[in-house]
């Protein structure tokens, strides 16, 4: 049987920004969840999750020593801190949008 839970239950995250590029770290709370996130948290899924902001590319870097991933999402900030009209022009709260993503888990 499969069910899904939000990424928020499995990981914590922080956003940074450079120009029109956002980077979001995702850090597993428990080491045993790292491989699940490795399988579920693909570049394609993350790109689709941010689809409404039209990112041009998503790159995932893996840091197994740190139980962490770093997602670099291009052109997702409406021009970035200087040009975006968003109240959160740095996109700082985007980490919590990523944490809202649903993750499929196997229930045996």
């Amino acid at each position, binding site marked *: 049987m499969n069910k899904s839970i939000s990424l928020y239950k499995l990981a*914590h995250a922080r956003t940074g920004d450079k120009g029109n590029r956002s*980077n979001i770290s995702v850090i597993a709370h428990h080491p045993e969840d790292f491989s699940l996130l490795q399988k579920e948290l693909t570049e394609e899924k993350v790109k689709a999750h941010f689809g409404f902001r039209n990112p041009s590319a998503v790159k995932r870097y893996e840091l197994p020593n740190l139980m962490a991933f770093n997602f670099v999402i291009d052109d997702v900030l409406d021009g970035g801190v200087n040009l975006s009209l*968003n*109240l959160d022009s740095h996109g700082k*709260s985007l980490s919590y949008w990523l944490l809202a993503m649903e993750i499929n888990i196997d229930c045996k």
Partner: protein
Amino acid sequence: MTDIYRVACAAGFSGDRTDVARPLVDELLRQGGPSCLIFESLAERTLALAQLERHQNAQMGYEPLLSEMLEPVLADCINGGIPIVGNFGAANPEGAAKLIASIAKQKGLPNIRIAIVKGDDVSAAAFRSKLEALLSPEDQAILAKSTLVSANVYLGAQEIANALIAGAQVVVTGRVADPALTVGPLMAHFKKDWSDWDFLGAATMAGHLLECGAQVTGGYFADPGIKDVPGLAQVGFPIVEFDAQGNICVTKPPSTGGLVNRMTVTEQLLYELHDPAKYLTPDVIADITKAHITDLGGDRVSLTGVLGHPKPDTLKANVCIDGGWLAEAEISYAGFNAYARAQLAANIIRERLSDLDLRIDFIGASSIFSGDTGEGPQFKSKEGFEDIRLRVAAAHGDRNQALRVCREITALYTCGPAGGGGVRTSLKPRLNTLACFIPRELVKASYEFFEG
């Protein structure tokens, strides 16, 4: 760890708290041993804002809170042999040095040695054509239609280190890479070779952990019930202990709030990082792919295994240009059917300002997560009793065109839907930044001592 050098960071941005240096300096003095205090106060746009300020008044253009930052601790640092390094010079390092000298004099320290790092400003007319040639064709076209406000290269740590070795008690810089504020003192103390890449890599990541101040000690981390942080109102700022092998331990003064654990350090280690194998700085390319973080307990976390690779051939420069005007205006609709009334107001604004690119937020129902196009997740209150703040934003090169946003929202008071209130409007100049990479040999960094 033997032969420990401590670096404490008392500011993570321009405008950060100014009461945080005191507990840091008290802790450095209590621990004894070699140490320094750094202030990181320049973000991407801060320097351009400082340039604008200097254009208005040639005496200004350095960190506005410089006095408040240094006054509480300057005498104890000087008397305790703790050098101070800060990029608080911003657009006017000489002005900052002059102010620091006058504070020192008031404190009965008339002869302190203040070094000024120079060479980051590449906005001079003589350099303009070289600079423009280094921009991408798209950015050249943008610059051609705008006014250059500032152009600064991110300098490395060598001038800071040289100044400290020559006896500087305070080092004032303008634009340097943020980690350079930490790398400079560590290189001056440990006297490593500037091609000891692993040491430079570790020093750089130590600086990276420090450069946002409280972001590694529990600031920007708390999520009640999930990630609780004690004493956040009095969050302590970080201290890094560094040894000759490049081992790092992050901690904070025990008298302060906040926390240092594996989670806070991991979040900050990856903050504003792209490829973890290639963190580019002027001094080294740092690599954390083999790094380990160990929670030692008691607000002590170690970072080991950072590697370094030879420094890049180019230096990054930030070119700041005039970006026109940003207008923002807000009005609230609350109570029954508020969201529908706010939507009606938005439609009126869209009709009245159809020639402008508007962003419209219904705060309380939809904001933040959606893009500037307005697409994205939304929720609507179930009860029919709502509290919606309508926000309209637009940017324009012409001040009067941007100002129409403010006027039209204000007019909603009498010409719009029922019950609108709480209009706030603002019109601000915008700055836009362009980046380019300058061959190292074109940049001449130096330092000199301030002569009062």
